[in-house]
């Protein structure tokens, strides 16, 4: 009887199988890639803010120390976002007419707080503590990136477990002298040796201890 399938079927069959594999693999692969890139955390995207506050201007331009606004960074889990009054300290004198600062003034007048949009948003089941990291020689820039170059704030690093673990597994790669913590531009000449020294000096707990689940999750 007549042929059911054309000759080409012989090639089509294996070809289609190969195609299937490629498509499926590609889909999975690209999803993983997105995840690793921190897509769902808006990594690297600037976030709209009620007031277009420029870290570049205040840090690089005016050379204001991080701790002037983020007062709690050495004493508390949270570095602290400055109250309106902090802004107002200066801005009742400088730029006190600027329309872009109107939210600050109205907030100060009405007592209604300014609602900033979160840039670094750790999940609620992860407990990060600024004070201990600062105390053990972790610089702001290590996690927050070159803040002094950011006109609008954006998250420089993917706040993912793998990323946290990088440092918790080998802190010597990222640790820096305490006096350089708030230095945005500091670079080690020889991180390898310096790192090992500092880990020693600051008594950073061994990876086995700081990678216990309970260190961050409770």
């Amino acid at each position: 009887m007549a042929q059911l399938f054309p000759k080409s079927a012989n090639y089509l069959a294996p070809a289609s199988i190969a195609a299937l594999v490629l498509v499926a693999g590609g889909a999975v692969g690209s999803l993983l890639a997105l995840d690793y890139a921190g897509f769902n955390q808006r990594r690297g995207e600037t976030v709209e803010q009620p007031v277009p506050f420029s870290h570049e201007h205040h840090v690089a331009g005016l050379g204001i120390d991080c701790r002037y606004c983020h007062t709690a960074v050495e004493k508390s889990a949270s570095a602290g976002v400055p109250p309106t009054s902090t802004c107002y300290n200066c801005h009742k004198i400088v730029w006190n007419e600027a329309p872009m600062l109107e939210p600050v003034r109205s907030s100060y007048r009405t007592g209604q707080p300014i609602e900033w949009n979160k840039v670094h948003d750790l999940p609620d089941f992860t407990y990060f503590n600024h004070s201990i990291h600062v105390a053990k020689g972790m610089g702001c820039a290590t996690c927050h990136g070159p803040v002094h170059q950011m006109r609008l704030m954006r998250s420089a690093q993917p706040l993912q477990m793998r990323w946290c673990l990088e440092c918790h597994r080998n802190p010597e790669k990222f640790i820096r002298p305490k006096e350089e913590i708030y230095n945005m531009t500091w670079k080690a000449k020889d991180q390898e040796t310096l790192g090992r020294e500092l880990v020693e000096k600051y008594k950073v707990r061994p990876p086995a201890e700081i990678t216990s689940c309970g260190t961050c999750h409770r």
Partner: protein
Amino acid sequence: MSRRIEGAETSMSLPTLRPEPLDDLPAGPAHFPLDLAEIRERLRTRQGPAFWRGIEELADDARFREFLATEYPRHASDWDESLDRGFSRRRFLELGMASMALAGMTACTRQPVEKIVPYVKQPEEILPGVPLFFATAMTVGGFAQPLLAESHEGRPTKVEGNPEHPASLGGATAVAQASVLGLYDPDRLKVPTKLGILDTWPHLVTELQAAAKAQKQIEGAGLRILTETVTSPTLGAQMKAVLTAFPKAKWHQWESAGRDAVRAGARIAFGQPAETRYELGAADVVVALDSDFLALGPDSVRNAKAFSARRRLVGGSKEMSRFFAVEVSPTPTGTLADHRLPLRASAFPAFAEALAAELGLAGFARPSGLDEKALKFAGTAARDLKAAAGRSVVVAGDFAPAEVHAAAHAMNEALGNVGKTVFVTDPAEAAPVDQLASLADLVADVKKGEVQVLLVVGGNPVYDAPSDLAFGETLLKAGLRVHLTAYPDETSRYCQWVVPMAHFLEAWSDVRSLDGTAAIVQPLVEPLYDGKSAHELLSVLLDETPRKGYDVVKEHWKSARPGEADFEAFWRKSLHDGVVPGTASAAKVLPVRTAEVAQALAAAATAAAARPSDLEGVFRPDPSLLDGRFANNGWLQELPKPLSKLTWDNAAIVSPNTAQKLGLQNEDVVKVTSNGKSVELPVLIQPGQAADVVTLHLGFGRVHAGRVGNGVGGDVGPLRTTGAPWVAAVTLAKTGARSPLAHTQQHFRMEGREIVRVMSLPEYVKDPAKAKGHGLPPKDVSLFQPGWEYKENAWGLSVDLGSCFGCNACVVACQSENNIPIVGKEQVGRNREMHWIRVDQYYEGTDLENPEVHHQPLMCQHCEMAPCEVVCPVAATVHGAEGLNEMAYNRCVGTRYCSNNCPYHVRRFNFFEYNGEREKEPVLKMLANPDVTVRSRGVMEKCTFCIQRINRARIVAEREGRAIRDGEIRTACQQTCPADAIVFGNINDPAAKVTKLRDEPRTYWLLEELNTRPRTTYMAKVTNPNPDVEAG
């Protein structure tokens, strides 16, 4: 919310671990509570007719509507619905939709942008992420429960006992621990109402002052004020002021689970009011006459601390006190007794007589009609008392007859205990009166139509007044009725004006403990709702322009302490310590009028014998809800009652032989009838209960308690009369119906297993290590060699089973500290309660009518070789470097394998979204401890040894470059335990308290043969029965 409380003094401030302190309330300070403030503002500014238009506007305010009509579906039966979802058509469609959704998995969604809401002007003492602690005090039954309250950015999340205050010494009771939930209870009365319609405080002020002016003319002849028991010096002074301003006015007091017997007893014994307190630390022999002095009453915490200290065998001590308990219904205190005698309530006068006679007190005759057993018991007790004269004490319970109290005074005097173990002082109460008489008096006046203005300041008399007073109906005969109350309750329905009462964490006040020491009640937050304090209400009568609570209290103390050189300093110190120096009442020596006592006692005994009843109903406050004031507190409703482990219900409690006699089974519904009134309750058979006695717990069957408390259990109030407030002849009739009871424990026999290990003192002296068993298997038998070495910190916990009497304070403390949800009656019935720590309880001995009872607090044992860790497929529960068995909630996929493989079954599983209410009720979000993850559905959880506290302390220590000090970390259960039965610490530190306890010979490991190597160890219970008599 975060506005600074005027004049508040922080006690101490510990640093804390908190990732983003500001994102925890989604909209931070500008959230729910502030809306209320603003609405309150709007309400306040509106007056008269304009106000009615105001309502319309307000009604359009969505947020306002939300808080007027919020949902709080935490009722037992609600879970049935959750089980039968999928049947309502709506749910069916939902499911249909969802099943389609399931097809397209929505995997890669992006995180929504969250808000950060900083302060506008940051209060200088507030450091975001670092909690502050304020000293304050809670008032229960009129007396102080001194507390330290933890505040996160101005929101109270947890209370602890105040170590500075003699009535707490750091310990706190279950009800105190649960008080925080009460603060955020969405069912609280939120704005004043007049005839059920929203109204305003200023409006009330005008009306009340008008009425007051009228009363002034007639010297207040028509003015009555009904309060609960009052120890508050400020309130007392205010009342005095009122009575001078209105000479013909009257002040009445009523407390349904009150201490009338104590007062009356003192009057019989001394001819004048007096208060008694005990130094159980100095007592070698304690005889309790129907007294639950460790778990109930104003001085329970202090008693527990002293009593347990006296009986704790550590550091080679071989001495402990001997404790005789005579009780109607088994109490937590009674479970520690070395000799225990169940006795009918009516027989107590006779027993007291017998005891006094045995002690050889003049004028006390051996009574007739007391059975052999009781007489023998009295004899033994008397012998031991005499042997320990001056080092012994006879304690009469708050609900024992007045004559028994009098007899106790007489015996203590005769034994020379006064001034050594027993101290008689002036009452701490502002006006100690016979409250039953006082209430009856009020009712009489109302009936006569003499009452034109009645202020009901707190309390809920319509619900809990003796039924023969028919308080509710009579109340309607009074003129202007104003009720100051936390909830719109039964009494509120009978008053035109209902004013929200501020929670003690919201308002200024003061209060004294039993020993007289005063504490300033210091608020942590502005009132969430429009709450007012009693001081502010009375100020309306007293002052032209009502004063704020803060001024009233502070000025009272200013006038009370003219001597203070620097009042401000004194004031600040009082606030800071939570103790007002020099307020403890001095001990007095009052001669006991033995003859009168003997007479009264004999009369009482014969009277009791004269009216015999084959069945006695005994009324007692519920161990958790007390007189019902906590009926709407879910934590307390779900708190398993001592011994029966019953939740979400009260029952007709009878002894096994009585049940047999009446042919009753557990959960049979019976009709309990007394003087014409009756209530239907399920039966609960309670070993250790006295024969022919039905114990009926007050505080249930509320109809206007709130969404949690409404319709839970049955109201036994109607059976109570002025004639018989504590004991009444009752009859039981089977209805044939059955009503299931939800217990957290079903099996109370140890099956001969070495779970709780007990020995008698002689046995202990002979071989202190008797209870140790085999001890742990040698370490080197493990397959995993070499095991992990704990170099620095190794956390461990030691529990002394000799001290624990099952008061449950630890359970609530843990619930509050660790954001543990409640699940409702139906889920408890399915063994799904979530408590991380539970107090297991076992009966032992041959006598079903009077068994030995043992308690065992059981929480995660933090095994070094944890069976749960091996089997978790995703490594969600693993071992920490310091030996904690850690649980990463967000890694858990919920196979429940760990729970199956835990020989102690201490793990808890979120079978449903038990925390759903937090989402439905924004106000409840403020209750959460920000340092602990709120667990979601499908996740396993368990005791973490309060890892948040460990991490907090470790970070501080690391920052200061030192080791963690012993005692720096205390788990929530340890901190609150009134008996100091729980000790936590670093077992690598030889100097640590916990290490010393672990080295005690009494210490043993639970199920040690499984080689799980628990970090939690137990210390065997030791009893001290009189060697001459066989136990009983």
